[in-house]
């Protein structure tokens, strides 16, 4: 097997998945990890009610603190995501997010493949602002606690990673199933079908964490570089891009997950992805497909 950039990326994705979800024994017991590592957030979207999860979900943490009557917006979770986003940008989605890996595997299921209409990609910003940042802070119950609205009404990762495993092992939880679970199950089915047909459907349309990291692509240290000359406009980079962007025209697009597939596809080797802010080094990095 050739040790390409994509193979290296897959190895990192699997390692990150395992590191984030290391408590596999909890699946059989139907319990969740309760140790102090859950003080810390995982870089990617990963439900903290998943039996195997070893860390807190950053989106869940934002909503938990935002919904607390004592705090409001979460400095800790926002600062954590901001720091990671400034360093890596949306490469976190491409390399470290467990739900990103699940989506890529779903996309390998044989089916007709489609691209997503651009306007749908703005939905995730509405979800971020409305359900993650504002709803928990401004809509409170009689005790002053806000609801984690994104987790409650949308998040298919929670349904898949936390809901299904816990419901399978807890009959008392199954007794409580109602309309909310039907809604979330329907969103999960939509997401699964969407991911089979459209690469990273959830990332493109719904992920509030990807929305934050994507906005930071414009300033992140890990970045894409396009050489000033040499592009022959063959369009191979655009065709190879799983996020449906033109990397030559928009190297800092909020949709780019820095997977490097465009760099590997470029016959002129003008695209590259990396930390180094030196054009010659970047070009040699980008041409390293072996």
């Amino acid at each position, binding site marked *: 097997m050739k040790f390409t950039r994509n193979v290296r990326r897959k190895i990192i994705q699997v390692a990150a998945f395992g590191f984030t979800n290391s408590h596999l024994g909890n699946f059989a017991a139907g319990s*969740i*990890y*309760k*140790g*102090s590592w*859950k*003080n810390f*957030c995982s870089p990617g979207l990963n*439900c*903290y*009610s998943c039996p195997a*999860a070893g*860390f*807190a*979900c950053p989106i*869940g*943490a934002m909503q*938990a*603190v935002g919904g*607390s009557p*004592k*705090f409001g917006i*979460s*400095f*800790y*979770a*926002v*600062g*954590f995501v*901001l*720091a990671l986003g*400034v*360093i890596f940008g949306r490469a976190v989605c491409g390399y470290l997010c467990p739900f990103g890996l699940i989506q890529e595997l779903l996309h390998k299921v044989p089916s007709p493949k489609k691209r997503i209409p651009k306007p749908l990609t703005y939905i995730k910003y509405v979800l971020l602002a409305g359900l993650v940042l504002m709803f928990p802070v401004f809509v409170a119950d009689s005790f002053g606690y806000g*609801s*984690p609205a994104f*987790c*409650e009404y949308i*998040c298919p990762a*929670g*349904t898949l990673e*936390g*809901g299904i495993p*816990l*419901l399978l092992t807890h009959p008392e*939880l199954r007794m*409580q*199933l*109602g309309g*909310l*679970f039907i*809604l*979330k*199950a329907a969103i999960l089915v939509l997401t699964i079908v969407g991911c089979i047909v459209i690469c990273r459907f959830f990332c493109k349309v719904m992920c509030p964490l990807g929305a934050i990291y994507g906005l*930071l692509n*414009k*300033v*992140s*240290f890990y*970045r894409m570089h396009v050489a000033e000359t040499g592009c022959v406009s063959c369009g191979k980079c655009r065709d190879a891009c799983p996020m449906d962007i033109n990397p030559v025209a928009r190297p800092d697009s909020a949709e780019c997950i820095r997977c490097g597939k465009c760099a590997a596809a470029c016959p002129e080797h003008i695209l590259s992805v990396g930390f180094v*802010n030196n054009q010659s080094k970047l070009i040699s990095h980008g041409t390293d497909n072996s």
Partner: protein
Amino acid sequence: MGRRTFKGIALLAVAAGLITAGVMRGELIVVLFRAVHVCLECIGLG
């Protein structure tokens, strides 16, 4: 130092400040409490 690098470093400093402020005012307790209990909202029970 390029403009982009400067912006990145400034934002990293802001992020460090936010994390410190969050830890100092006790947000970790809320995060930990939430993360070590089954989140009924997350799993679709509300």
